[in-house]
């Protein structure tokens, strides 16, 4: 296996592309978890985003509307998680799993109601990739980095923006306080309930956008189980990045790279059963997490519902 294969520009370009939905979803989840809510429904949320977004984009032929619809729909799911987890103080994990399953079923139901049996599967035009003048001219890295769809740039732009928001602004400070010690924040007049609701809803919307990314930029069509476990990976990227926006990037890239690489390897190593390569991303993910979990320090109040009147 030659070195050229590992650094082949088209491979890297694809890796960067496929890392984006992971990263975006991870950022959404990060906002939610920083406020003290655990959302394990990402996989379901992403597929709702993919389904709803695709439907709207198909009928309006407009990616903007598609994105907005995806975000709105998933924001609704986020609100639902909030209602159970914050207002009713339910076990966020169990409710999250319920929403995850709900999210698996809903989009294919809607898709089916929208289009009956079709000779040719409905298709939308992909978001065009826009090459940044001059930069994309740079040999080798130009096409890899600067010839991507808008959403890719936006996602990577969101990383510094989010870290600035979290660590340099009053709202960010209060948001983190909700995740660390809600009672303390509450005694200082931070509105825990409102903050957490805002976080689940906004975070969910972002996750929805991440879901829409797949049909809008990769496949142009919607199929059941289109997310294929990426939501679960995103969930882990948050821990991988120790709840810091920037640190999630490397994880997203790593996973996307290995995922893209496996098919190259499969072409060369004929004697090896392809399934072996297909398990590669998941096994690598597990191995990586073994290291990560040693030093993972989650927000102190993660998964703890807040009840001001609770004693002590």
């Amino acid at each position, binding site marked *: 296996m030659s070195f050229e294969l590992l650094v082949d520009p088209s491979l890297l370009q694809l890796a960067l592309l496929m890392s984006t939905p992971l990263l975006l979803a991870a950022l959404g989840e990060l906002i939610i978890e920083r406020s003290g809510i655990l959302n394990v429904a990402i996989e379901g949320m992403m597929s709702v985003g993919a389904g709803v977004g695709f439907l709207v984009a198909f009928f309006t032929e407009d990616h903007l509307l598609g994105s907005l619809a995806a975000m709105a729909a998933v924001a609704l799911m986020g609100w639902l998680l909030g209602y159970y987890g914050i207002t009713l103080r339910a076990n966020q994990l169990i409710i999250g799993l319920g929403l995850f399953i709900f999210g698996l079923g809903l989009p294919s139901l809607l898709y089916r109601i929208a289009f009956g049996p079709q000779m040719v*599967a409905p*298709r939308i035009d*992909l978001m065009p990739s826009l090459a940044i003048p001059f930069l994309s001219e740079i040999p080798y890295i130009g096409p890899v980095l600067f010839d991507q769809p808008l959403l890719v740039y936006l996602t990577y732009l969101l990383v510094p923006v989010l870290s600035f928001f979290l660590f340099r602004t009053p709202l960010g400070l209060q948001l983190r306080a909700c995740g660390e010690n809600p009672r303390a924040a509450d005694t200082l007049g931070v509105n825990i309930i409102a903050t957490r609701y805002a976080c689940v809803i906004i975070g969910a919307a972002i996750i929805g956008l991440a879901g829409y990314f797949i049909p809008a930029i990769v496949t142009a069509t919607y*199929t059941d189980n289109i997310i294929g476990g990426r939501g679960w990976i995103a969930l882990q990227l948050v821990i991988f990045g120790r709840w810091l926006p920037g640190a999630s990037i490397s994880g997203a890239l790593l996973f996307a790279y290995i995922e893209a690489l496996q*098919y190259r390897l499969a072409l060369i190593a004929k004697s090896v059963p392809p399934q072996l390569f297909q398990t590669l991303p998941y096994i690598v993910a597990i191995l990586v997490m073994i290291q990560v979990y040693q030093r993972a320090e989650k927000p102190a109040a993660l998964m703890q519902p807040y009840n001001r009147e609770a004693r002590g």
Partner: protein
Amino acid sequence: MKAKVRLFCLVLVLMIALVPLAGCATSSPQAKSTAVRVALIMPGPISDSDWNMLGYEALQVVAKEQEVETAYSEKIAVADAERVAREYIAEDYNVIIFHGGQFVTATMNLAGEYPDVTFIMGSATPVPDLPPNVWNMVRRYYKGGYALGDLAARMTKTGKIGYLAGVQLPDFMAIANSVHEAAGKVDPNIEVIYSFTGDQNDPVKARQAADAMIAEGVDVIIDWMNAGVSGVEEAVLASDDVVLMTTFSTDKHERAPERYLVSMLLDLGVPYSFMVGEIKQGKTTGVFDFEPGSGMLLSPTYNMPDGIAASLKSLWSQLENDEVIPTENTEKLFDQ
């Protein structure tokens, strides 16, 4: 809390336990009826614009041509197939079509149990010692694959053609082999690269696999995936240099008009209608070869010189009349 819930459960369990009593009253397992009623059981959603949608279409044809009552169940997991079939039988359906080979167990179990119901099941190679009430549709994809391989070999400029399928099934391996055979006949130096994504219906994987092939210099891709195909289309459309492709089951060229060469269409109406007709005549067993000429046909051709189009059509007709007979090798891939 717990105590009360417990009682609730007991009640539920009791309910379940009592129901069969009601059950025996309402229906008897072996109800007879003369009219032919056809039920189609499909593994996937009929909105897949593919295998299951074709099954659905075929069922309409059967209903029209044979003037029989029909019903269908889609997205039936193998685990549920037998159950669903029994429910149809309980509702006096006497022809059960299993839309795919994964239902072989269900078919065999039921065939023994319900001699007066006829079953239709697909498979890749003929089922040995077929029960007297089972029709067996044997699909011979590799024959079609041979034609596509020949075409690809004539179209490629880089001398590399790709074969892309989802699950590494024996008859999908057979296709790879016949593609290789055909290409070799055209030009021994042509390299055939194949890849299995592990899922017939995952366009994301398909996209990545196709990208990998294109990076390897492949410029004609023979796609043998179902919903996954859209991923291949996007990969082909995204690549800077012209990469052409073919697919099967339905004509999808409108989604990538510049890239599609041809599609191998499957008209399941032909076999299903034929078999149901036979059953109406009282012939409740037999083997139907699903191959060029009987259900498999070529779509219009695009993006190719007339000469090649002509040779493709002639090769196809030779396949139809068995003037060309590709070797069937489901054992292992040509280069292993």
